[in-house]
């Protein structure tokens, strides 16, 4: 067993990319973060696109896309502009392995919320999201994954359990999942989410990628934040190991998420150490 190990890259620090390159099998890029506005249109930043094309053609590093702004769960409409960014990336870099989005909404009536909110797990949302996932898969012909997000607000009333809802979406659409284990820890801390029953119920073979991250607790409100600002905690590594132990047959990649703004704080050496640690974990046989 050995998974592809990688981290986030936002395209603005080539020295950093070159430093981590020997230690990663993939980088995960957010189309939203590498976009700019040229002539009134949102487009992938030309310099960053060149960097990614270089990575794709001149290195053994795979490129994964991970969106933030599609807003797949907005009742009114999703973000068409984001889909055009995907068009541009897939046309420019055909070797992109897969793309993903959060099972969430970030805008309402075209107005940006400024953050990402979890969706209620109802039949209405199941129908809406499944229809859109199908449309995405039809349009891009690349594997598409959805990620569980950390809840920010109390659940307004859901019909399905967290795992049951993910199972339903993957059954209906054939899409895969990113399991963000740090988000699960956030939900456990903030809302009493029960991780063990979630694992028991989840179809683990839908999971293609794991996200791990290190965040912080907001002391003012005693709230565990999904901020990708720190090294990995032992609890996150333990949870990662629990997923490995379940031998998910389709799991391909583990991504250490870091916000670009915190790369300097964490430090290149520490990031490389975390990547090496994840690689060593992924090589062990299930316990």
């Amino acid at each position, binding site marked *: 067993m050995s998974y592809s190990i990688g981290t986030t890259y936002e395209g603005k620090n080539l020295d950093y990319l070159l430093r981590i390159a020997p230690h990663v099998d993939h980088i995960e890029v957010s189309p939203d973060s590498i976009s700019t*506005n040229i002539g009134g249109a949102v487009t992938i930043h030309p310099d960053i696109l060149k960097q990614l094309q270089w990575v794709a053609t001149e290195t053994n590093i795979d490129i994964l896309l991970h969106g933030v702004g599609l807003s797949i769960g907005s009742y009114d409409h999703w973000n068409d502009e984001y889909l055009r960014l995907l068009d541009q990336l897939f046309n420019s870099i055909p070797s992109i392995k897969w793309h993903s989005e959060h099972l969430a909404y970030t805008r309402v009536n075209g107005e940006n919320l400024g953050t990402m909110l979890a969706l209620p797990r109802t039949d209405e949302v199941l129908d809406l999201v499944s229809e859109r996932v199908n449309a995405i898969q039809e349009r891009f012909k690349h594997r598409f994954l959805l990620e569980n997000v950390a809840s920010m607000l109390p659940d307004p009333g859901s019909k399905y359990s967290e795992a049951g809802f993910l199972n339903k979406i993957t059954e209906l659409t054939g899409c895969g999942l990113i399991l963000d284990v740090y988000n699960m820890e956030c939900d456990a801390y903030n809302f009493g989410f029960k991780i063990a029953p979630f694992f028991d119920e989840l179809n683990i073979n839908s999971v293609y990628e794991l996200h791990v991250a290190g965040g912080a607790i907001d002391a003012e409100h005693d709230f565990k934040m999904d901020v990708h600002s720190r090294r990995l905690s032992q609890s996150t590594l333990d949870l990662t190991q629990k997923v490995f132990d379940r031998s998910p047959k389709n799991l391909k990649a583990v991504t250490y998420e870091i916000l670009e703004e915190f790369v300097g704080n964490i430090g290149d050496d520490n990031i490389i150490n975390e990547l090496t640690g994840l690689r060593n974990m992924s090589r062990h046989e299930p316990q």
Partner: protein
Amino acid sequence: MNLNELQVGVLDLIKSRHVVGINDSTGYFLSVKGSKELLVVRKVALWWRTLQIESFCTLSSALLKYENCFNDAVTSFYNSSSFSPYRDEVGIQFLDYLQVYNSDAFVRTVSSFELALIQCKKGKAVSLSQTWEYEPYTIISGLLQNAISKEHFVKGSYLVEVCSGNAELFTVTPFGSHQ
């Protein structure tokens, strides 16, 4: 409550607007309105905007911080406008917003100057002429170092011009020195 009602109500709560015309028979919005979770959502949203704006609008952010009104400006921008999800666009929208809504004339001057510089660097055709009541280089230097102080505000009268044809991006001419 359907998804439409939920999301519109949540949007109103997050943006500190009154939730109107929405059925709240379950009391959900009432409970969220007084919750710590709503405060966290707002805090996170403002933190993201701050991060985006600080890195994009260096001069205006530093000036607003010096005047102790950066957080208020970001909050006001966040609550009142439909901003873009993309960092570069948020920065431009914020500078536009300052020019229309900020009550401080010098903040408006600096934000329009900064916007013109950014547009110039992006290759847009720009021609801006404005009057500064302080010596511009001293101010700009202090703002760029994020270390502006009272000493940087040296009174005077200057014509500042930003022009896309200018390799130096902008020129400063003291009034009274025109040929």
